[in-house]
């Protein structure tokens, strides 16, 4: 019957009219509920139809379907073929969103990952399902439910670290094994709890130093906060705090980083396969998120240590809001001075000097308000400042520096599948330094600001298709320096370097496609543009680096434009339930250059925008990885290999003259760089003993005309072997032992080979000649740090813990540099400068 050919009398009319015609002319029988039939009119193009085609045409668009029952055509409402479950995943105890929590559907063997705001969405056919929610450090929760229509399901997971709720941890199921299943490779999610157990200098838990134990991430120089990711320079890491870039991450010259771990919730590190939503730096992204604040109850926590103390308060504000405020103050200088004065009888106690001025503070604050189920706003702010004067390390130089960031965010859920986040960002970094001696006596002030707008969308089309897209707009302002003489005797004249303005824009889209349970891939593209904006002066130089022309631009005039198209690609192939193979390619662009005016990296280093003289840098990276889980995900093993090409890599030319140089771009040269390496990581994720062992074999090379006499050279961060061990062991319910060890091949250093020309009055202005750039190696770095934690007996609310630590347990004198001095009385001598030997620490932390 459905295949009969019919000839229509009409080509337009309502469904009911068409059906009654058919009933009359061909005696077909139809059964339907009139309420479900729409009353509007339709048009069809032709009159001759096969009955089934016609019905299909009339009904399908109106969510109706038909079937033949006993020679009667029954028309009914089409059932949902796709329904969406969405919601947020939070931590039960404090209501914090769990970024990256996985939601897995057992029956479909598929799932999704909660985004940066704990939001997840799964679009699936209706049916009976078991949803499994899991997150590292939390007990897995299973929900069995009948899903017939769209629904919201917010889940709160119970932390497995919180010993108050001892729950028997059941055997782990394969669906939890996110590191195997995720398409993303070359990424690490760092648990704050892990950061807090890693022993650090003076017992100050440090987020950025902890990630330096991961494979492929290498400490720049002891005592600095710099790090290099997969052979990238220290300025190639995008460090975001709640989305705002932090330009300088050092406290006390880099002994500590500026992030107070009490205020942090999550750290995500990308070394490769960088998602399209991130851009602006070549080598890595460190995305740090602050806590939202406990929305269940008020809580106060803090700690007192040898060189710093902390306090953090969080709690609910009414029913739909919560806050978090955290502060930290460091008093390294005062401690040193007291020691030097009181303990002058101990040899070496006064070595650190009695005139130290080393202090810092940082403040974090965050408020979040849930306006309604579809709208949520957040405001977060960070401020940190440092003052540093120590004649031993920096002679007459006194430094002050600080960062401030502010972020406003608005999460909006358009519908169960479309999530958006609007971010407004303000970032500021200033530094000043003064040289306190008679001849130079001056103060240098520099500042850098950024305002940004970002709009990001996550579209969860189906469990097989997820789309991310968005845009970003940044406004940069640079004031690289003004110099003011501090006294009449100063030989330095007042000077102001040109201020610069720039606008950076980006558009991106990416699509994650789960082709089959075995094979998934993610591809995307990020298109960015960069514009130098007036008021400003463009300098054009001749081949000898002499200023040829100056071109002045009015306010907001376009001076120069660059753009870049950056493809991103990642793929994952599941070999079996316990192992997978991944590959990725990414291109990244970087429009801001950090020109380091010191070999070790100091807060005085300047950021400069790309311009007509210094082109933007871009890098291509390919990576291949093998990931395996053993014994129900108790152990994890990963092997990754990468190769990276860095184009327009920058460095100062040989014999650059940078001191108070108004045209610093004439001292910079660009060329080609490459980096490659192999990373191994073996991890134990559960049990009383937890930790990892990682090893990286790597190489970095650069070829830049004008640097190292045009020959290939290895930058300072080219260090062949890097071994790290991080361990924590629960000795008993109250005692925990932790240790970390790292071994890194010595950094490269350029050393004098001899004198080139004598001085007129030697040795005061003699000229030396040197080895090739970084041709010598400092001794290998290795260090063992250990810590013990004693938790107080459990009382009602007060939880306290003593943390005892020893940094550099076997007192290795790791050289940060060699110093060469001309001896009065003839000859030269070389000495190695090291920062510290064994450093014990004691801290007390509390929470109630």
């Amino acid at each position: 019957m459905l295949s009969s050919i019919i000839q229509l009398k009409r080509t337009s009319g309502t469904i009911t009219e068409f059906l009654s015609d058919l009933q009359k002319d061909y005696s077909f029988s139809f059964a339907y509920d009139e309420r479900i039939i729409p009353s509007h009119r339709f048009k069809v193009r032709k009159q001759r139809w096969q009955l089934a085609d016609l019905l299909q045409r009339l009904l399908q668009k109106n969510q109706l379907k038909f079937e033949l029952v006993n020679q009667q055509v029954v028309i009914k409402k089409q059932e949902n073929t796709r329904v969406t479950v969405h919601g947020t995943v939070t931590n039960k105890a404090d209501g914090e969103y769990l970024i990256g929590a996985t939601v897995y559907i057992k029956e479909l063997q598929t799932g999704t990952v909660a985004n940066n705001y704990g939001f997840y969405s799964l679009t699936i056919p209706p049916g009976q399902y078991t949803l499994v929610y899991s997150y590292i450090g939390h007990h897995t929760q299973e929900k069995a439910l009948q899903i017939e229509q769209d629904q919201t399901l917010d889940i709160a997971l119970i932390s497995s670290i919180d010993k108050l709720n001892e729950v028997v941890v059941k055997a782990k199921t394969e669906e939890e094994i996110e590191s195997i299943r995720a398409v993303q490779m070359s990424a690490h999610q760092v648990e704050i709890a892990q950061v807090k157990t890693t022993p650090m200098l003076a017992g100050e838990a440090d987020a950025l130093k902890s990630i330096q134990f991961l494979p492929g991430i290498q400490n720049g120089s002891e005592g600095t906060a710099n790090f290099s990711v997969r052979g990238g320079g220290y300025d190639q890491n995008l460090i975001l705090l709640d989305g705002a870039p932090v330009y300088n991450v050092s406290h006390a010259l880099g002994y500590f980083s500026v992030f107070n771990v009490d205020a942090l919730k999550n750290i995500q590190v990308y070394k490769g396969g960088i998602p399209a939503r991130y851009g602006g730096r070549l080598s890595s992204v460190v995305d740090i998120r602050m806590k939202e604040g406990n929305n269940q109850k008020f809580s106060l926590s803090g700690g007192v240590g040898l060189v710093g103390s902390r306090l953090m308060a969080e709690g609910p504000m009414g029913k739909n809001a919560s806050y978090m405020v955290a502060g930290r103050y460091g008093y390294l200088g005062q401690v040193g001075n007291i020691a030097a004065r009181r303990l002058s009888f101990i040899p070496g106690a006064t070595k650190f000097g009695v005139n130290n001025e080393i202090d810092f503070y940082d403040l974090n604050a965050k408020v979040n308000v849930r306006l309604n189920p579809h709208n949520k706003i957040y405001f977060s702010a960070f401020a940190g400042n440092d003052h540093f004067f120590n004649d031993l390390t920096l002679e007459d130089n006194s430094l002050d520096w600080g960062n401030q960031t502010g972020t406003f965010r608005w999460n909006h859920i358009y519908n169960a599948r479309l999530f958006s986040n609007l971010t407004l960002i303000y970032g500021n970094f200033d530094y000043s330094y003064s040289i306190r001696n008679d001849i130079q006596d001056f103060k240098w002030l520099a500042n850098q600001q950024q305002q940004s707008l970002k709009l990001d969308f996550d579209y969860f089309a189906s469990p097989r298709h997820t789309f991310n897209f968005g845009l970003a707009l940044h406004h940069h302002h640079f004031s690289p320096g003004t110099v003011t003489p501090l006294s009449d005797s100063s030989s330095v004249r007042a000077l102001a370097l040109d201020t610069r303005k720039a606008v950076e824009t980006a558009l991106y889209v990416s699509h994650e496609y789960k082709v089959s349970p075995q094979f998934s891939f993610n591809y995307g593209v990020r298109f960015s543009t960069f514009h130098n904006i007036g008021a400003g002066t463009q300098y054009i130089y001749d081949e000898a680096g002499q200023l040829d022309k100056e071109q002045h631009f009015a306010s907001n005039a376009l001076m120069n434009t660059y753009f870049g198209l950056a493809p991103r690609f990642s793929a994952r192939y599941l070999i079996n339930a316990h192992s997978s193979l991944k590959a990725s390619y990414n291109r990244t662009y970087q429009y801001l250059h950090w020109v380091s005016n010191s070999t070790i990296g100091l807060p005085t280093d300047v950021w400069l925008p790309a311009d007509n003289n210094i082109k933007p840098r871009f890098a291509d990276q390919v990576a291949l990885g093998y990931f395996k889980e053993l014994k129900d995900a108790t152990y994890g093993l990963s092997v990754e290999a990468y190769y990276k090409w860095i184009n327009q890599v920058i460095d100062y030319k040989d014999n650059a003259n940078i001191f108070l140089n108004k045209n610093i771009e004439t001292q910079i040269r660009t060329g080609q760089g490459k980096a490659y390496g192999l990373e191994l990581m073996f991890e134990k994720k559960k049990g009383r003993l937890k930790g990892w062992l990682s090893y990286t074999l790597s190489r970095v090379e650069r070829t830049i005309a004008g640097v190292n006499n045009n020959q290939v050279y290895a930058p300072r961060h080219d260090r062949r072997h890097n071994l790290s061990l991080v361990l924590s062991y629960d000795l008993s319910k109250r005692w925990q032992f932790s240790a970390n060890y790292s071994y890194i091949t010595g950094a490269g250093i350029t050393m004098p080979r001899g004198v080139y020309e004598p001085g007129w009055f030697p040795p005061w202005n003699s000229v030396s000649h040197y080895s090739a750039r970084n041709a010598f190696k400092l001794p290998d770095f290795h260090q063992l740090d250990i810590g013990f934690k004693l938790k107080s007996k459990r009382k009602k609310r007060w939880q306290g813990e003593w943390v005892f630590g020893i940094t550099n347990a076997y007192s290795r004198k790791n050289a940060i540099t060699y110093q060469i001095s001309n001896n009065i009385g003839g000859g030269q001598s070389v000495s190695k400068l090291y920062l510290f030997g064994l450093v014990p620490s004691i801290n007390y932390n509390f929470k109630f």
Partner: protein
Amino acid sequence: MKKYKIWVLLIGIICFHSSCEQPVDISLLHNPAIIIKGLVIDQPGSYYVELYRGSNQYFPGTPYAIPRFEPINDALVILTDNKGNVDTLKLWERDPEIRRSGQASAFYRTQHFPQAQAGVTYQLTVKHEGNTYTATATMPPPCPAIDRVTFDLQQLKLSPTYTYSCYVPAISFKEPQDQKNYYSFYYSFLDERDKGIYWVEDDLEGPENFWPLVGTRRHYTVVSDHLLKPQVNNLEILNKNAPPNFLGEFFHLHDHDTLNDIKIQMHSITQEAYEYFNVLGDLRQNNAKKLFSTAPASPPTNIQGGALGFFIVASVSKKTVPYPTK
């Protein structure tokens, strides 16, 4: 009180172990390069080449660290040009007294090489211990004539408390605007006060084609023409070598009477030579900035084959003027 003691003890341990210097054996670093410096100018006469090994060994017992250079006396030094002229340079024996300042170089000079000319390319080849070092440079167009030399009495601030008055020579000449030019200026005088002072080199007392070769150790300055007008009036020759302390006095023309005439040379040099002199001047001045400087590097060179130094080919104009009087 007990807690306080623990605190103090801990701080004590930290300080005991904190930041320090430890001596390192530097014999590993002893690997000095061969340094070759040559000067060919568009003037008649012999041309000179200096050869030594830059050392990091020092004369023992001297009150100040004076490097013990090693002269290279057994090298084969050949000068050629692209017109087919070849000359093997001969070791030039100088007054041994000259070495008292610690400068121990070997000098070679041409025997019969024709006078150098603008536009001709010259090549210097040095063979020593199985290694061959070469350098090539082309003679720039003739150097403009020095029209006039004047002296400006200036107060130089050599330290916050020490001001010194001296004469700064100023040169006037016509600058050809249709080409890119780089100039170096040298002046030489023998100061009566310097005589008998052991650190004074009498390098400046050599032949006219010789003293500017070693004159970079004393009084010189370099400029690029890019800001120069067609008529350059009273361009000051500030000494790039003067140290920023009381010793700077010895690097300038005193305002007291001195007997000798002042010999002035103006060289038109290549762009590479101009950059070399600039860097050399900076290196002398910036000896001490450690933390705030980039990785150090050797002075640039145009010598191929692993040696350092520079082969300079320059057109020259000269003037001798009496010492200025008040």
